[in-house]
C-alpha cells in the first residue's frame, strides 16, 4: 500500500484518540502532562483555548474522549480525562490576565447573540478579542442557559458557572438579562447588528399525550421545565412516590433531584432494555448508587387519575427479540402493570423551537420546523444569521455547543470582513522532537500499570441534606498524581524516517505491544494479517513507511495499542524512529488571516 502521508493534518491528529473524539479538539495529553507538573493554570488555559469552560466540563461533560481513549484498549478503563480537567480548574490560580487583550478601539461591527448559553458565550469569547461589540440577550435573570437551569447544582455548583461566564462577560460583553427576544424581524430590522447568532438551545420538552394527561396535569411535569423551576427555587418539594419516564441524562438529573426534594421512592421507567439506554453509563451508576430503581421494558399506557388526583400510571410490560447485532427485531406486550405515583416527570427528549422567528425572513425551516443550517459554516439560509448549539441541529451537549460557537465565530468574522464564510483556514499539525539526550525524553515515557482512580463522593448520608451539596469531591492530590500517569501521551508521536533505517530489528524486538513489523509490502487488508500481532482494529490506521533501502521491505506500525513508551526510538541506533509531540492547529476566529481592526476600516 502507499506510504502513509503523515503530512496530512488528520493522520497524527487521529492517533491522539481523545483529541480526535473531542468535538473541540482539546489537547488532552498536553494538559494532563501540565497537571502532572503541578502547572494547573497552564493546564486550565490549554483547556480553555479549545473548550472555553473547563470547570463546567470537568464536571458534566459528555466525555466523548473517554470511550475513545487508547488506554481503554490497552487495559480495561480509559484515563479519567474529565475528572482531571476538573483538577486543573479547581487548583488554578488567577488566569484572567493571561486571556487575550480586548482592544479599546472597537472594529465597528456589532453582533447579537440570542440566549446566554455555552454557544453564545463561546461566540463572544472568540469575537471580543478581535474588536467586536457583542450583545447577548437572555430571557432569564441569570446567564448560563441549560447549564444553569437543567443541570442540578449538586452536579454543577452555580459558583463554577459564575466564574467561567464572568471571564467572558468581563471582556466587555453587553449582557442583557431578562431580555427575551420576541421577534426576529424586529431584531434584524431595528437592532442595527451586523450579524445575529441564535444560541437559544432546545428548550421545549417533549410531551406524552396519553389518557389522563389533562386530568392529572397538576402532578405531571415536563422534565427540563421542572428542573428549571427547581433551579430558580419555584419548586421545593415533590411527592413521596415519583416516576420518571425516559432514561436519558435528563431523566437521571430528574430522579436524583426528586430524592433531594423529599421523594422516598423514585423509579425510572424505561421502555427498552438497558443496552438501549441513552443516559451515560456513569450517570446511571451515580443514580443507582442513590437507590434509584430503574425498571426496564415498561411502555407508558395511561395516567391514572382518581378524584382529580394523580394516583399512578399504567404500563404495558414489553418483551423484545434482539438479533445478534443488537437490534430489536420484534416486540410484544406481555401484560400490563400499575405503578403508583404522586408525581410523574416526563424526560423523553427535547426539541428546539422557534415561535419567535417569523417565517418570511428568508430563514428557511424544514418540515420538522428545524432551521436549515450549514453544518460547517453554521449559516442559515439568510446571510448574516447563524445558528449554533442545540438550536442548530437539536440536542447534543455542551462540548458540541462550544465547538459550534467557535465555528460560528469564524463565519461571523468572515461575514463581517466581507469575505465568503466558506473561506476557512484548514487544520494543521506541527511536530517537535521530544529528545533531550541519550535516553532522555521531555515527557515521562514509562508505562504506569496503575488502575483508574475513583473520584470520592460525599457520603450517602450527607449528600441529601441540601439540594446544592456537590456530590463529587474531585480527585485528591494523590489520586490526581497517580491518574495523570495513566495517560499514554499519544500526542508524542512515533515518527519514522525510512532513509535512516538499517533494518536491525531493534525496535521490533523491544516493542512491548508488538506494534511493529518489517515485511514485504502488500494491500492493507493483506498487511493487517501479516503483522507480528494481527491488526484487527480497522478503525486504527497502519503507519506504512516508504520501501527500506537494503531489502525493499516496508516498516509497518499498527497504531492500535501503541503505548508511546518511546522504546523503539531509544533502541534505534540511527534515530530513524523519533518521538515527536504533535501540535494540532484547529483554527479559531482569531487565527483567520487579516486582523479584524485593519480589514474593517
Amino acid at each position: 500500500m502507499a506510504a502513509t502521508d503523515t503530512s496530512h493534518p488528520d493522520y497524527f491528529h487521529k492517533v491522539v484518540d481523545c483529541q480526535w473524539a473531542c468535538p473541540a479538539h482539546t489537547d488532552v495529553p498536553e494538559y494532563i502532562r501540565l497537571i502532572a507538573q503541578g502547572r494547573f493554570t497552564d493546564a486550565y488555559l490549554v483547556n480553555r483555548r479549545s473548550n472555553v469552560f473547563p470547570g463546567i466540563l470537568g464536571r458534566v461533560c459528555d466525555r466523548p474522549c473517554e470511550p475513545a481513549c487508547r488506554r481503554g484498549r490497552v487495559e480495561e478503563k480509559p484515563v479519567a480525562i474529565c475528572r482531571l480537567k476538573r483538577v486543573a480548574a479547581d487548583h488554578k490560580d488567577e488566569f484572567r490576565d493571561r486571556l487575550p487583550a480586548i482592544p479599546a478601539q472597537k472594529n465597528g461591527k456589532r453582533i447579537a447573540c440570542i440566549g446566554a448559553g455555552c454557544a453564545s458565550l463561546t461566540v463572544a469569547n472568540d469575537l471580543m478579542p478581535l474588536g467586536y461589540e457583542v450583545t447577548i440577550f437572555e430571557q432569564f435573570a441569570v446567564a448560563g442557559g441549560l447549564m444553569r437551569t437543567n443541570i442540578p447544582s449538586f452536579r454543577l455548583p452555580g459558583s463554577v458557572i459564575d466564574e467561567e461566564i464572568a471571564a467572558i462577560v468581563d471582556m466587555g460583553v453587553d449582557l442583557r438579562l431578562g431580555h427575551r427576544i420576541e421577534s426576529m424581524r424586529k431584531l434584524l430590522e431595528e437592532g442595527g447588528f451586523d450579524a445575529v447568532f441564535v444560541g437559544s438551545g432546545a428548550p421545549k420538552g417533549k410531551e406524552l399525550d396519553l389518557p389522563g394527561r389533562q386530568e392529572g396535569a397538576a402532578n405531571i411535569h415536563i422534565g427540563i421545565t421542572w428542573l428549571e423551576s427547581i433551579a430558580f427555587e419555584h419548586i421545593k418539594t415533590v411527592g413521596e412516590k415519583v416516576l420518571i419516564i425516559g432514561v436519558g441524562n435528563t431523566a437521571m438529573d430528574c430522579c436524583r433531584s426528586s430524592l433531594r426534594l423529599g421523594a422516598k421512592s423514585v423509579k425510572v421507567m424505561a421502555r427498552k432494555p438497558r443496552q438501549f439506554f441513552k443516559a451515560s453509563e456513569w450517570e446511571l451508576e451515580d443514580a443507582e448508587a442513590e437507590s434509584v430503581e430503574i425498571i426496564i421494558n415498561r411502555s407508558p399506557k395511561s395516567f391514572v387519575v382518581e378524584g382529580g388526583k394523580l394516583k399512578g400510571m399504567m404500563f404495558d410490560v414489553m418483551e423484545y427479540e434482539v438479533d445478534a447485532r443488537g437490534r430489536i427485531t420484534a416486540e410484544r406486550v406481555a401484560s400490563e402493570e400499575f405503578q403508583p405515583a404522586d408525581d410523574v416527570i416526563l424526560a423523553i427528549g427535547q426539541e428546539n423551537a422557534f415561535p419567535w422567528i417569523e417565517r418570511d425572513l428568508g430563514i428557511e425551516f424544514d418540515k420538522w420546523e428545524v432551521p436549515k443550517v450549514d453544518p460547517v459554516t453554521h449559516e442559515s439560509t439568510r446571510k448574516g444569521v447563524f445558528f449554533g448549539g442545540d438550536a442548530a441541529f437539536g440536542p447534543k451537549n455542551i462540548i458540541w455547543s462550544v465547538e459550534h460557537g467557535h465555528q460560528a465565530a469564524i463565519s461571523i468574522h468572515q461575514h463581517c470582513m466581507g469575505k465568503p464564510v466558506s473561506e476557512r483556514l484548514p487544520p494543521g499539525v506541527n511536530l517537535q522532537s521530544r529528545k533531550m539526550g541519550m535516553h532522555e525524553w521531555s515527557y515521562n515515557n514509562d508505562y504506569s500499570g496503575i488502575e483508574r482512580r475513583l473520584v470520592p463522593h460525599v457520603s450517602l448520608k450527607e449528600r441529601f441534606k441540601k439540594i446544592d451539596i456537590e456530590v463529587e469531591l474531585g480527585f485528591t492530590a494523590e489520586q490526581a498524581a497517580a491518574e495523570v500517569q495513566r495517560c499514554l501521551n499519544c500526542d508524542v508521536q512515533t515518527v519514522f524516517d525510512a532513509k535512516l533505517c538499517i533494518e536491525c530489528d531493534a525496535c521490533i524486538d523491544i516493542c512491548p505491544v508488538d506494534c511493529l513489523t518489517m515485511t514485504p509490502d502488500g494491500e492493507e487488508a493483506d498487511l493487517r494479517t501479516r503483522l507480528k500481532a494481527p491488526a484487527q482494529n480497522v478503525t486504527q490506521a497502519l503507519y506504512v513507511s516508504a520501501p527500506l533501502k537494503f531489502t525493499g521491505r516496508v516498516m509497518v506500525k499498527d497504531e492500535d495499542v501503541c503505548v508511546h513508551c518511546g522504546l523503539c526510538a531509544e533502541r534505534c541506533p540511527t534515530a530513524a524512529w523519533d518521538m515527536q509531540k504533535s501540535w494540532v492547529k484547529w483554527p479559531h476566529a482569531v487565527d483567520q488571516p487579516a486582523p479584524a481592526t485593519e480589514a474593517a476600516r
Partner: protein
Amino acid sequence: MTYIPKPKIAHPSLPRNELGLTRRDYEGALSTLCAGCGHDSITAAIIEASWGISLRPENLVKLSGIGCSSKTTAYFVGGAHGFNSVHGRMPSIAMGANAANRDLYYIGISGDGDSLSIGLGQFCHAIRRNVDMLYIIENNGVYGLTKGQFSASADIGTKAKKGDVNQQPPIDPVLLAMNLGAGFVARSFSGDKKQLVPLIQAGLEYPGFALIDVLSPCVTFNDHDGSTKSYQYTREHYEPVVEADFVPFQREITTDYAAGEAVPVMLHDGSRVVLRKLAEAYDPTDAHAAYDYVQQHIAKGEYLTGLLHCRPTTDTEFHGLNRTPEQPLNQLPFGKLVPGAKALEKVLARYR
C-alpha cells in the same frame, strides 16, 4: 540500551503456547547492549523459538563466557538456569552440567572472541565430544567490549572503524565444526528471524552438538563502509542455500514439499528437521560435499546461510560414549550417588 525496563504490558491478543505462556513470559532482564546490536535480535529469536516449542523455562540451562555476546544470557528466559563462566571456558561447564543431568536443554552463547580466540581449544573439544547442546556464536568480527579490535573471525581486507585493514586470515567456525565432525552446523544472520527461529528450535532438539554461527553486526564498532560484517554488507552478501523447518514429533507436516527438494532428517524423539534446498547442486547431508561447497563460496566472499550440514547422530552421542547415568545426579538416591568407603575400596582394588 534503554533506561526504562520494557513495560509489563502486552498486546491484548498475544498468543499462548501449550503451557499457556506468552512470548513475553520468555523474556529476561533489560539489555544493556548498544541500541541496534545484532545480539539483541538473536535474543529475541531465542525467546520466540523457546516459546514456539513450549519449552519449560526451568528445563533450560543458559551458559556463557565473557564478552558482549555472553552478557545476553541474562536477557532471555528469566526463569531458566544460568552459568556465566570464565572467558572461553563455557564448553567445559556445559559438558559437566550435561553429564550430570541429561534431561535439560543446554544453550551456550558465545562470541567470536570467546570461541575462536581464547576459547578455541574448548570449542573444538566440545565438538569432538559431541556435547548435547546448542552452541550459538554471535559473530561480529570485532572485540566490541574492548572498543573494536579485529577478532579471529575478521575477514582479510575488512576495515576497522579507525581505518586499519585486517591482513590475517579468519577462522571460520562453520568450516571448523564440519572438519571436526559436528552433525548440525548452521549459519544465519541476526536480521533474519524467519530463518533463525526454526534453526534454534531444531538445534535445541538435536541430540548432539549443534552449532549456529550467527552473523550479528556490531552497530558501534563494525557497521561502517569497508566492514564485511556490517548490516549492509551482510544483507548484500548473504545467500540462503537451505531452509530448515523444525517439526515437533506430535505434529504432522502440513506444508507440501516438492519431491527431491525436501530432505527430512529424523531426530531421536521422532521430531524432524526438514531441509529445503534452495541451491540445486548442494547436498546438506553429505559432510564432505557441504564442506567444499561452503568453502568455495567463502572464497567468493559470500555468506552461505541456513542449516548447512545436518545428519542424524546416534553412534557418537555424548551420553552413550561416556556412559553417563540416565537419571540426573540430583535425583539419584544418596546411597547410589555416594556409595561409601567399601565401594571405593572395590574400585581402587581394580587398579592394584
